[in-house]
């Protein structure tokens, strides 16, 4: 009696799980698929030649690339220090570097404006020298660095922590200074995690919307990145908006696949 009951219960459970899974997958894929269904290939290709689309594409790639480089340059030493050294205030540093992940982008944008805007805490002094950051391409990069840096720093720190200290100790006894150990042992062994962190950070920078529109504004060719261009064009030229969206979908897919490939453990 109990045997057949168990079989029945298991079958019901399997069916239920499968149904939940199918429903959820449909919820995720249907909207994405709809983007592809609502535009003809010809319309897609022709909107790729429109200036608003081309400007947004190149601006997005250049700014996201630059902000990723900045994040990696500053974030790598920071992550390494936090992974390896215990110092007073380390928890605080960790919390602060994580903050942009949970901070709403609109708040980040306003905060950047209050700091570096024309009348901002720092910006008012820069203004005296004729330097303006708000509503420039630099502001786009700064907004991206602000929101995307935690994605790299968190991943980098975790990858450094996963490197066995024994290798670093052995390297020291063989004559390597702490700097050489970092460059020749720790960073190479954490490489996969660092690359995937950088890719995630790049993807986050590419998708940045809220902080950018508040701090950098929405000027075509100067601060109008792809997400901003989607928002702008959908009010008139829906094809351009969909085309840009499709490009971002493809990039997102590529990013996830790339991260999966580089994080496959080699050692």
């Amino acid at each position, binding site marked *: 009696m109990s045997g057949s009951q168990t079989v029945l219960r298991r079958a019901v459970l399997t069916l239920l799980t499968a149904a939940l899974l199918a429903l959820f997958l449909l919820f995720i894929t249907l909207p994405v698929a709809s983007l592809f269904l609502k535009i003809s290939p010809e319309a897609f290709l022709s909107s790729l030649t429109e200036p608003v689309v081309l400007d947004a594409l190149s601006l997005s790639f250049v700014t996201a690339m630059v902000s990723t480089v900045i994040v990696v340059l500053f974030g790598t030493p920071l992550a390494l220090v936090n992974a390896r050294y215990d110092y007073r205030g380390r928890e605080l540093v960790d919390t602060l570097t994580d903050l942009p992940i949970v901070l709403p982008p609109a708040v980040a944008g306003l905060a950047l404006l209050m700091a570096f805007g024309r009348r901002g805490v720092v910006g008012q002094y820069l203004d005296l020298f004729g330097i303006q950051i708000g509503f420039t391409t630099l502001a786009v990069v700064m907004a991206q660095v602000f929101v995307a840096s935690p994605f790299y720093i968190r991943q980098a720190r975790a990858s450094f922590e996963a490197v066995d200290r024994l290798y670093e100790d052995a*390297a020291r*006894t*063989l004559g*390597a200074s702490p700097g050489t150990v970092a460059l020749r042992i720790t960073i190479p*062994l954490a490489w996969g995690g660092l690359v995937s962190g950088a890719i995630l950070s790049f993807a986050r920078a590419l998708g940045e919307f809220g902080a950018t529109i508040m701090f950098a504004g929405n000027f075509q060719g100067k601060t109008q990145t792809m997400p901003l261009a989607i928002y702008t064009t959908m009010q008139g030229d829906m094809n351009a908006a969909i085309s840009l969206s499709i490009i971002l979908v493809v990039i997102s897919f590529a990013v996830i696949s790339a991260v999966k490939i580089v994080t496959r453990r*080699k*050692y």
Partner: protein
Amino acid sequence: MLSIHTVRKLRDYVLDVTLSVRPGETLVLIGENGSGKSTVLNLISGILTPDAGEVTLGDRTLFSSERKINIPPENRKIGHLFQSYALFPHMTVAENVAFGLRCRKVPKAGIADAVAEQLSTMHLDDLSDVNVGRLSGGQRQRVALARALVLDPELLLLDEPLAAVDMRAQAPMRKELHDQIRNAGIPCIVVTHTLRDALELGDRLCLLEEGRVVADGTPGEVLSMRENGFIESFTG
């Protein structure tokens, strides 16, 4: 000549060890797990810093709490073999052996020659370009030893050098290791938990209990202390 006096507070006890090893002499450290054997090696090579004490090697003072000297591990010229060998997994055999020479900024040609020579004396020539992940326990041990010896260290610290070697290969490896140590002609400390290592490698035997040296003498002397519980189980 290596002389050490080191004190360091550990989790369960205070390690307080005084030892000296002459050039060409091999001291074997034995004792229960957690008696502080590996810690002593780490304190000598500089991976750990003593709370107090002094470490001298030849005429160099490597550490002195009184004189505030603490030479960093990379400048101590000590070959330290770890229990798991710690071969760098992202490098080939030759790259592992070359690592220390590259850190010392030896010219490229000099590195290649020294590495080739070291690999050949240790019968590793065929494995030169192999990634260390593919090596057997015995091969790993030889690569780790080659990586340390190529730098002409002034002291050799070996932590369980044969533990990761196949049982069958242990006897010939032990003999080979014995010869290598003899040829190096420098002080050597071996940590082990096997009687064979202690008898065949050691000129002197030192028994550690909770961070203290409780016996120090020739293998015959120390191993005859049958009243000691560890020695009884070690020889039994």
